[in-house]
């Protein structure tokens, strides 16, 4: 018990890093994902192509590779871009998750009946009013289950920052385990991940219920 209390502070500080990566990735990639999706269904062919390639690259290569690339690779390219660990991790995560969210939003947007746009047009709502008041709420309802899956994945994916030396939850547990030669820290770490995913699953269920008043 004493041992647990002793290592808890370092685990909590690791969890803080994990949660902050988690939080800022969502803050960045959800709106960006929506914007990219709007671009993908816009009538501009070149924009569609470019965004298509971006999504393909991000979804077609491992996130771990992207993380290493942003942190170790960018400086080597002679771009002069050297990002600190935390910022590099955020950039890689946001780029990656934006692509996944964009695909989800695109599917959601395309499943909206074109009659909705036509109604909005004859009522003379402009593009942003239409998106904000008519399209977005309907897309939200459609995409929330898929977004939810990605959100849970993100909790676990955040442990990949380990590889560029960030002190997240997994690293904190691992350090303690190899130092003290015991499995206890890893078990605690597992419990903390379970707690986090259970919590976000619950929140997502609540959001889903919030949208269940209409069909």
């Amino acid at each position: 018990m004493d041992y647990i209390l002793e290592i808890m502070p370092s685990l909590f500080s690791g969890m803080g890093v994990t949660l902050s990566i988690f939080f800022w990735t969502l803050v960045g990639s959800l709106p960006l994902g929506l914007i990219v999706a709007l671009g993908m269904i816009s009538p501009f062919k070149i924009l569609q192509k470019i965004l298509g390639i971006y999504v393909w690259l991000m979804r077609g290569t491992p996130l771990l590779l992207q993380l290493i690339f942003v942190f170790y690779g960018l400086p080597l390219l002679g771009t002069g871009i050297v990002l600190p660990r935390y910022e590099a991790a955020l950039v890689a995560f946001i780029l990656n998750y934006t692509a996944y969210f964009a695909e989800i939003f695109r599917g959601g947007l395309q499943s909206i009946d074109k009659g909705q746009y036509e109604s909005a047009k004859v009522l003379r709502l402009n593009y942003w009013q239409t998106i904000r008041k008519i399209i977005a709420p309907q897309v939200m309802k459609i995409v929330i289950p898929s977004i939810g899956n990605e959100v849970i994945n993100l909790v676990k994916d955040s442990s990949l920052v380990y590889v560029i030396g960030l002190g997240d939850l997994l690293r904190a547990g691992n350090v303690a385990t190899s130092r003290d030669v015991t499995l206890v820290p890893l078990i605690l770490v597992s419990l903390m991940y379970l707690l986090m995913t259970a919590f976000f699953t619950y929140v997502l269920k609540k959001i889903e219920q919030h949208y269940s008043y209409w069909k």
Partner: protein
Amino acid sequence: MLELQQITKKFGERTILDHVDLTIEDGKILCIVGQSGGGKTTLLRCISGLEQIDSGKILVNGKEFDPYVNSNNEAVIGVVFQEYNLFPHLTVLENVMLAPQMVLKKDKETATREANELLKKLALGDKGNLYPWQLSGGQKQRVAIARALAMKPQILCYDEPTSALDPGLRDTVKEIILDLKKEKMTQIIVTHDIEFAKEIADDILKVKPLSN
């Protein structure tokens, strides 16, 4: 008064409307009838700005008007779609209020009051807080009419207003249309139902498929 002069509409190489002329006086009811594929819906979509015409002119009160780019803030044409196209995530009241608030910049109280008046007039007074999925087909259609009227259009267009209704409700729509006529609303009605057209129309336009 709405005038169409020499309206032509093509889809690709296929001409659907070939130099159509049409005049509707204020407060009159025009029915557009004709067999399937004749271009009735297409004509309505051109008038309401959902399709761009290839050539010809549309005039409202003698002034040229392009519904496709209608950006001036004059409410001219309202549409009641065949599928109604209500906004499923908004209540009946919100469906009706949304555009007056967003587009005409009415404050919430005014928009609510006017929407409630319209709903009452269309026998939907107690339905304001329901969602579209909770309504019958006839009720949905009346919400669609209320939503269009809330924008105070000069002309109201309907696509097949009777096609999805059972016979009893057909007369309800007829009454609504005739009541609106008393209020000097100009109305254009696309229908398969020749009988219905004869009962309500001041003018009937027949369209038929072009052979190409």
